[in-house]
């Protein structure tokens, strides 16, 4: 054995790899995950706009009309379009993941995944229909 080879006894010389900042581009599923996390920003945006709307409503009819007029500006329309797509992605990905987290056992048997996911979609549909009915009936 040549003399310049020496083993570090009981203490291997590990090679440690670093995680690249672009790790989420290495796999489609990672990118999808990051996108799903990103949707929360848009969900928050929707929430803030809704709160703002409530606030305007409290300020009286004039303030409300002003608020609604502002919502109709191209900037807000475009923003809402994008937000809608992201929120849709958010809802669908989370509904599909729900069965993983929620385990319901009926008579000792686990309720199948599609039933749990289906329930989520059903509640979503009913809630959306109710909101649509409330808004569009007048």
């Amino acid at each position, binding site marked *: 054995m040549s003399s310049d*080879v*020496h*083993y*570090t006894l009981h203490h*291997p*010389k*590990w*090679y*440690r*790899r670093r*995680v690249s900042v672009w*790790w*989420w581009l*290495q*796999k489609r*599923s*990672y990118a999808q*995950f990051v996108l799903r*996390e990103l949707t929360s920003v848009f969900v928050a945006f929707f929430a803030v706009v809704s709160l703002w709307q409530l606030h305007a409503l409290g300020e009286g009819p004039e303030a409300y009309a002003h608020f609604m007029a502002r919502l109709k500006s191209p900037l807000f329309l475009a923003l809402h379009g994008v937000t809608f797509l992201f929120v849709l992605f958010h809802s669908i990905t989370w509904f599909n*993941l729900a069965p*993983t*987290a*929620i*385990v319901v*056992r009926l008579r*000792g048997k686990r309720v199948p995944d599609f039933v749990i996911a289906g329930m989520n979609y059903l509640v979503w549909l009913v809630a959306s229909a109710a909101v649509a009915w409330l808004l569009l009936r007048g």
Partner: protein
Amino acid sequence: MAETITLSVARYRPEEEAEPTVQTYEVPYRKDWVVLDALNYIKDQLDGSLSFRWSCRMGVCGSCGMTVNGEPKLTCAVFLSDYLPGPIRVEPLQYFPIVRDLVVDISDFLEKLQKVKPWIILKEEKPLSEGEYRQTPDQLDTYKQFSMCINCMLCYAACPIYGLEPGFVGPAAIALAQRYNLDSRDMGAQERLDILSQKGGIWDCTFVGECTKVCPENVDPAGAIQQYKLAGAAHWFKSLLLPWGAK
């Protein structure tokens, strides 16, 4: 005509090189060979210095986990024919420090596994005269899936959170904690929750879900962690509403 297939294998010889390199080998292609067979062919016929771990070659021991074409796999469970026409890239498992070639240091996982107390905890033992601890098939069924883990650590190698946040206890250890929580004989759920509610525990998981996809035993560690989170949150609510009731 003897067909062959190329394997690009990651090498790291700490006494010779400062960082890993790639070496390619030409091995015979056989329909019934798994990637591990090809590695053993290299070791026996071409280059005895190549180091890798394996034992059972039948998906039971969990020691042959490596990165094959970028995906964490049990090398005894993936066939050369899955990767035609090649070349097949074989690298050590991601995120773990490399000791040599395809061998990684797993002590971090072993420490974490111990931390979550993966054994049945009893407040007090029954006297022998009272007989065994019984369990119905339904009770067994609630945790059986999580008990199938073979500690192969593929789920760690698939988890970007473990890569970014080395303190994270990680998928398999949490799944095993949940396996004992759900066991009707166990009384240690609170102890484990105390440990896993801390930094590095269940809340570090952001539900990437890759661990479940790569698990060769269908353990569904991602499910275990999310169910654990739900139970943890429910427990926290209960202790908030009924501070004297929840223990």
